[in-house]
């Protein structure tokens, strides 16, 4: 079962925007959509490492700021002609607080 840790208030992340969380497994981008859903994706584009947290959020997609690859934030999958996958992490909102999977507090398994 996934356990969760509190990383901040929903209101700390702008709608259609993102904030970064530093974790033992690298930076994770926490996105908030215009209808207040949240997603957690590895903050590294599989193309050339662009910070997805700086991309434009539209619906449940995000566009990488460097070369416009588009990712479905549900699955982390690149859309359209581009092929690639970003890791996603369990995340949810409870009582206005954002909770993220506690696995991110642990070092990457060797």
């Amino acid at each position, binding site marked *: 079962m996934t356990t969760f840790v509190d990383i901040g208030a929903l209101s700390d992340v702008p709608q259609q925007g993102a904030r970064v969380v*530093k974790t033992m497994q690298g930076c994770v981008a*926490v996105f908030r959509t215009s209808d207040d859903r949240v997603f957690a994706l590895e903050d590294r584009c599989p193309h050339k490492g662009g910070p997805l947290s700086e991309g434009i959020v*539209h619906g449940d997609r995000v566009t990488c700021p460097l070369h416009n690859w588009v990712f479905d934030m549900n699955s982390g999958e690149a859309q359209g002609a581009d092929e690639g996958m970003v890791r996603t992490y369990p995340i949810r909102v409870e009582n206005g607080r954002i909770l993220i999977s506690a696995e991110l507090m642990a070092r990457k398994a060797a």
Partner: protein
Amino acid sequence: MKKKLVVIGAGMASGRMLEQLFDAAPDAYEVTLFNGEPRGNYNRLMLSPVLSGEKTYEDIVTHDDDWYAANGVDCRFGEPVVKIDRKNRIVYSNKGGAPYDALVIATGSAPFIIPVVGKELPGVVTYRDLEDTHAMIDAGVAGKDAVVIGGGLLGLEAAAGMAARGAKVTVIHLMGHLMERQLDPAAGYLLQKDLEKRGIKVHCKGATKAILGTDRAEAVLLEDGTVYPADLVCMAVGIRPETRLANDAHLEVERGIVVDDAMRTSDPHIFALGECVEHRKQLFGLVAPLYDQAKVLAKTLLDEAAEFVPVQTATKLKVTGCDLFSAGDFAEGEGREDIVFRDPGRGIYKRLVLQDDRIIGVVMYGETGDGNWFYGMMKEGTDISEMRETLIFGPAFQGGSKLDPMAAVAALPPEAEICGCNGVSKGTIMAAVAGGACTLDQMRACTKASASCGTCTGLVQQVMAFAMGGEVQEAPAGMCKCTDHTHEDVRRLIKTMALKSIPAVMQELGWKTVGGCHSCRPALNYYLLAEYPLEYKDDRQSRFVNERNHANIQKDGTYSVVPRMWGGVTTPDELRAIADAADKYNVPMVKVTGGQRIDLLGVKKEDLPHMWADLNAAGMVSGAAYSKGLRTVKTCVGKEFCRVGTQDSTGLGIKLEKLMWGSWTPHKLKLGVSGCPRNCAEATCKDIGVVCVDSGYNISIGGAAGMEVKETEHLASTPSEEETIQIILAVTQLYRENGKYLDRLWKWMSKVGLDWIKAQVVDDLENRMALVERFEISQSVYRTDPWAELSTPAETPKWGPLADLTLEAAE
């Protein structure tokens, strides 16, 4: 002997439960009914029609004295229960006790009060009961100023009711659009428009800071500094289950009183139902599931087996003239698809969310007649794959052969109106095609169809295609995959239809996606701020990273910082401050740019606001080296120093930069001013260049030195520096108002022609001054330093990480 049943709360849920109980077994219990309100059960939902004057209190009473008497209920109204003694099974009000064999808690919920200064002033009400309703009726009748805090279901019914009574109402809503839990932004926009039509002012993204007033409420102050006068303030920001009694009695309480499937609490003699309960982690705020609970509890009390299973509920707003319908889950998600239908002319929006060929969400605005049909299929889990193509058109279109759009056009009678603005019918369009009009332009020229607002363009094309024998016409390329409208159309419609927000554009112009994409959102944001500089608020989230973060992102995710050096002129103090910043933040590279200023490369994101604050303190502002806007004005030293210089080119460059900094343009804009034709500032490969000569100033435009190299073309010559400045500001504004987003000036010029530009800004003096004035109006908003705004103590933390889990793990 009859068993004793005590009920706390005479509300919607307990009322229905008692009906069921007496119907099934009139003699099973002797009932005592406590109620906090000094009256029995009435239909709480109908308070809104009472408020708006469409009904009276008498109309909405559900159980009168005769009914209670006939069923032998001991009514203890106006007597709130203050304590439950579980050990001896007695409940107490302040007037006395009542013993029970079975106890039902049905205390409903309490309005949430936001903890702001002034919340306890007289004149601040909530919206829950008849007393609140009367307070609001009084304010309305007296024509007073009212503010409703909260743009959800209750808040809007309160606002509409008071407005109907004559109050001047403002709704303040924290989120970006109204009723965000039930509606998506498009439907929220239509609702706001309808409310504004009835004189209600809506302020979204408004956070209440305080309620002002000495003896009673006088005004509401928002975080952004806005103040709205308010004789009456209605707080409708949400409810929380009324669980105080259950808490004190140490029943199991989470967010609500925890009940099992039979509506029993953690004490086997105590039951609960209504908004005060929590069932399988779920709370309830609408009556439909409460009625199901009432049925179940009546059976449980009669020792019959029954189980409460919550069903999804649909929401409607009871404001006459605002038809909306919302049910299920309408968030986007993987494997989910949307079917969107928009009829901008009639203000209609319908959206179905599908998953695995089943409807899982419905949002409708403007025309909700088919809502229950969709809702029914949603609850049943009906497979809709067979009727997918025509599903959104509702039950009337189902059955028979599948409709393709062409067949739908074929089925229209000749007199059917296609273009609403110009009253052009299908027959007229067919006749025009027969007469030889086979392109959209020709059609517009000869019938005016789709020549005004343009929202019917798609339909006109379909009719033309049908008339030409099904040959599908090539539509002009849309702005992006979200719309068939071209950039030019969108710009024109933003202006003619007075569209002032991104959701407004998307709704009125029939966007095919829900939230746009990375290609149209920045363009729309630019068009809106250029058209409505004073009203539109720049949407940072619709900007590309560099413009959102006011620095250029580098390939490794760090940023470059370029402070402005007016006309390329600097001072020893500025250079020292730049050097200090470079040291302090370990800048790996300091580089002189081609724009005559200094670039600090490799700055970490969280350091940006600190570095900006340091540079601000030394008097420097952002150089906007990242913007689709004014970048630099490159100058040469000119006649002040150069032995062949003819005019003060440096001085003119600085003047121009001071007037134009901060402005947004369709693409980046670079200027150059050279002091003589030797042209050391390379002015003739800039977007706008000035080359000084003995007799004055030669202005030329449309140069470039990128992948394309272009020499500027001569626009005007004048002996006057002042006129030079005016012409440059005017041509910039003309470009701002007409240029397609991401067209450099030369590209725009190649489309509209240099002659047209000359006619607008050189020959027509009046027009030139009007352009200058509009530029100045916009600059009154945008001639500000974003670095200063984004490095305040409140903003600075937002540049760092939200959380650092590496630290917590180490502890």
